[in-house]
């Protein structure tokens, strides 16, 4: 576009038709109207929620607090919480879409209420959001919150970079949300294969929204990966050997390494697609020497490691929970560590199993099929070692443990179907059917999300200082478990009955009963989410009697439990020194859990910085400008972004100091509370008596 045309169209491609709401009003087709109504409703929800939030913030004069205490914060704990909040916001949208899709499925015999295009936008946004803007932020948030605490560090290695990663992810998420209000989203699914996503077949802005939101997310994740890996590698408390690290930290390390190496192929492949779309390159076109197969190849070079990026932190959570709630040390620690590392490495060797049916020769399929099955070995070791962890322990069936036990059952089923898919001969049959959809939801929900939910229940008291309501937690957990089974077991059978994924409607009456079961299951899942919200509400209401300031409500084993709940900004007044696994359990057993140090020192922590939010804002506008081809905006925000980096390079003195006295006062206060708190037995851990001090019960009992 030349300068003159740019000036003629200061808003690029943007015009009144870009707003689906206006477009709907202009149309008299009833089908367009219904789908337009749904779309406008969703768009209105986005707009209204934003307005409500703005209004509330103004009403309670919370802007200052928000900006100084949260948005610009470089504290890993706050950043972690913001990641989780982002995940939850996005989750609401993605679940709503999931329920809509299942409702459509239930009435999808020869029709239904959704248009084909609308359905396609639903599965595309649902998949994109769930993977990139729900699961990834959720686990990144947990890692951010927990890992520095577990390794006895004051913060991550690069706090400001951490904030930038967060804001890049937020910008990506905001872009996806914007597509609801302005324009449309891609219909190409979460992996957007060309040439379908090329300009020839998809000239609109939908695919561009998808490309730039993914690019932002993948950049954010790469930086997060670097940050976490370096933190774990360089910032451990003195004495903490790699083999002393808690399992969650191990899985975080492996996940971080995978992010570092798996995100680049995604960045490359989306940018190449962008070049095809914007500058008429021929990377993936049908003609002129393009090679669409290479898109699949590179996408899955990222995509397969990605699914293990999702599952590994969940594995870490389960490891902590099995050990803590069995009141017992992890069985086979080294096996678990080596299994984690093997999974991470093997995950780079199997990407081809996502396109067994593209036509390559049998021996290639066989090699990658076998490589895929190999992953079953370390995964199995984990399952077995968790079982052995419970063996000879004392298992408490609290909410996190309910999730973990359900996880074992359902994950094994999902793993088995994974092994079946890894078998090329079988994959030729079930590829691209809803059998595959069942497989990956089996891994993503009982595998990843149950882990995230368990971790949420487990660490919530640490982060906010009070326990979550146990009863509503259980109700929610059972709804999740049975709802999930109802929603997805039918899909296995439907897949074997030949129903392709992404079908808005079907012609076989024999599908209907199972589709209805699946819809009911999805409703139960929605109920589970409601129960979760109620749980949060109830817990906040009763927060005073559920306070656990001392910080150790579950008789925890690793260092994050060795500080107050919530922890001080600097985590530990004195950096602990470690000489064993399960460092905090050891300390409690030696009776040195709550001791005062000899001296206190000044603590340096990073100052707040507006870098992150500024980066988020400019990169959002940059991406928005690219989507709508508003070139002046692109150039302007591009320059501001670079400028911010340059200016930051010139800054010095980015640390602030917390004086030793402040540290001392806070620490004494906490020790006082710990010493005066009644140590409670595990049978009382869900009662108001639990102030976060655990009684020593790990004594061998036999009969």
């Amino acid at each position: 576009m030349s300068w003159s045309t740019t000036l003629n169209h200061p808003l690029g491609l943007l015009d009144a038709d870009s707003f689906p709401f206006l477009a709907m009003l202009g149309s008299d087709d009833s089908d367009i109207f219904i789908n337009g109504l749904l779309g406008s409703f969703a768009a209105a929800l986005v707009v209204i929620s934003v307005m409500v939030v703005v209004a509330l913030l103004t009403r309670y004069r919370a802007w200052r607090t928000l900006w100084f205490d949260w948005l610009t914060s470089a504290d890993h704990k706050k950043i972690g919480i913001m990641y989780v909040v982002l995940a939850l916001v996005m989750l609401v949208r993605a679940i709503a879409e999931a329920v809509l899709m299942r409702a459509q499925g239930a009435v999808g015999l020869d029709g239904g209420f959704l248009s084909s295009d609308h359905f396609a936008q639903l599965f595309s946004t649902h998949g994109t959001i769930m993977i990139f803007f729900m699961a990834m932020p959720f686990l990144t948030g947990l890692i951010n919150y927990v890992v520095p605490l577990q390794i006895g560090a004051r913060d991550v290695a690069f706090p400001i970079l951490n904030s930038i990663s967060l804001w890049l992810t937020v910008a990506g998420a905001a872009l996806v949300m914007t597509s609801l209000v302005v324009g449309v989203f891609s219909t190409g699914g979460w992996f957007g294969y060309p040439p379908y996503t090329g300009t020839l077949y998809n000239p609109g802005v939908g695919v561009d929204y998808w490309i730039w939101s993914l690019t932002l997310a993948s950049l954010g994740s790469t930086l997060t990966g670097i940050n976490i890996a370096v933190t774990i590698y360089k910032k451990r408390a003195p004495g903490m050997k790699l083999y002393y690290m808690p399992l969650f930290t191990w899985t975080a390390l492996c996940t971080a390494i995978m992010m570092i190496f798996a995100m680049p192929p995604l960045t490359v492949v989306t940018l190449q697609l962008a070049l095809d779309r914007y500058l008429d390159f021929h990377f993936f076109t049908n003609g002129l020497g393009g090679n669409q197969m290479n898109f699949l190849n590179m996408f899955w070079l990222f995509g397969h490691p990605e699914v293990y990026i999702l599952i590994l932190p969940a594995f870490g959570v389960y490891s902590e929970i099995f050990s803590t709630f069995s009141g017992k040390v992890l069985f086979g620690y080294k096996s678990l560590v080596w299994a984690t590392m093997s999974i991470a490495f093997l995950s780079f060797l199997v990407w081809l199993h996502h396109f067994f049916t593209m036509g390559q020769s049998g021996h290639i399929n066989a090699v990658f099929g076998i490589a895929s099955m190999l992953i079953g070995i370390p995964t199995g070791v984990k399952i077995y070692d968790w079982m052995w962890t419970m063996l000879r322990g004392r298992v408490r069936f609290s909410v996190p443990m309910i999730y973990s036990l359900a996880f074992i059952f359902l994950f094994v089923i999902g793993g088995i179907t994974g092994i079946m898919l890894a078998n090329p001969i079988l994959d030729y049959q079930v590829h691209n059917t809803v059998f595959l959809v069942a497989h990956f939801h089996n891994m993503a929900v009982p595998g990843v999300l149950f882990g995230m939910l368990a971790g949420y229940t487990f660490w919530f008291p640490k982060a906010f200082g009070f326990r979550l309501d146990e009863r509503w937690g259980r109700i929610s957990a059972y709804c999740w478990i049975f709802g999930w089974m109802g929603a997805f077991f039918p899909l296995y059978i439907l897949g074997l009955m030949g129903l392709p994924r992404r079908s808005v409607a079907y012609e076989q009456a024999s599908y209907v009963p199972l589709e209805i079961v699946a819809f009911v299951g999805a409703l139960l899942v929605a109920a589970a989410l409601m129960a979760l919200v109620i749980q949060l509400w109830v817990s906040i209401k009763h927060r005073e009697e559920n306070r656990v300031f001392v910080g150790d409500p579950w008789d925890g084993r690793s260092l994050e439990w060795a500080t107050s709940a919530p922890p001080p900004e600097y985590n530990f007044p004195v950096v602990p020194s470690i000489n064993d696994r399960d460092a905090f359990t050891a300390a409690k057993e030696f009776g040195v859990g709550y001791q005062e140090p000899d001296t206190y020192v000044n603590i340096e922590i990073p100052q707040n910085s507006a870098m992150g939010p500024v980066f988020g804002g400019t990169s959002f506008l940059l991406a928005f400008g690219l989507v709508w081809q508003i070139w002046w905006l692109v150039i302007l925000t591009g320059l501001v972004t670079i400028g911010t980096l340059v200016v930051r390079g010139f800054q010095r003195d980015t640390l602030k100091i917390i004086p030793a006295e402040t540290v001392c006062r806070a620490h004494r206060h906490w020790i006082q509370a710990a010493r005066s708190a009644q140590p409670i037995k595990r049978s009382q851990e869900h009662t108001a008596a639990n102030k976060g001090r655990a009684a020593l019960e790990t004594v061998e009992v036999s009969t």
Partner: protein
Amino acid sequence: MPKSIMSVSVLQMHGCGSQQAVTLSVQCVALVLLSGCNSTEHLSFLNPQGPIATAQSEHFWLVVAILFILIALPVFIGTVWIAWRYRYGATKSKYVPRWKIFKPLEYFSWGIPITIVIFLSILVWEDTERFDPYRPLTSSTPATHVQVIGYDWKWLFVYPEQGIASVGMLAFPAGQPLTMELTSATVMQSFFIPALGSQIYAMGGMVTQLNLQADRPGRFLGENTMYSGDGFHQQKFAAVAMTQADFDAWVQQVRATGIPFDATALNAIAMQGTKAQLRTVLAPAAPAFDSNIYFTGAKANFFTDLVMSVMDDKPLPSTALAPAITKGQ
């Protein structure tokens, strides 16, 4: 007079009753669900209608049996038993909070999965090559040769040897191999007849191959499984295996009644739209004996010319199509 197409479709059989004795009740329930017995079309490879699907079905049950009996069951029982026996408050079992390693259990944890994976790997290694979709099926009778082209949102089947083409119907003789070459005139698609066997992608400017066979006459669901746009879910077709005589009759029928496969026809096919929409465009010329659309005068070089034109991003050469003239050659 050759049998009409209508009468051929009456031949479509109902395979469920005549299946080999199925004793396992689990399998039986699954079969009823899966085969779609209430419709005339076979939907699933679990009620296999050809050698490939049969092998896949056997493979499927073998793998399911191994994985569920050797892996899932022990884990399920073990987890329940352990979690209960070692619950908080239990008195009968020993509590050893520092018990963290026991070599035999470790060997077991690694050994069991390794053994099973080795076994499965042997299975995969041997069978993947054998069931390469490119591999022609051995048979005493010659293969029927069909060229498959994916359009938005319908499949075009070209019979180069017979000089005919169809949208919506893939007819072929039962009991002998069916050899297909596939390509796409548009986005990436995946061609799939579950009751007969493997699926394979069809891509622009490229040719993939697929070899299938039906054991006996029957009607099978055919589809595209790779999302391709608005009409994707309607991109279905009927794969119909016939006796040789019926097939010959069908070919004659198509030759006699099909519309010429010329530039007008091809332009209509290439437009985005489902089979039903295509019919409304071509309806004036198309006889209405069933819901499909048949063409005559398809040239043997059409397929290759089309692939090349997509590959070079050039219009189809005029020699690819017959000039719009004769009917039924």
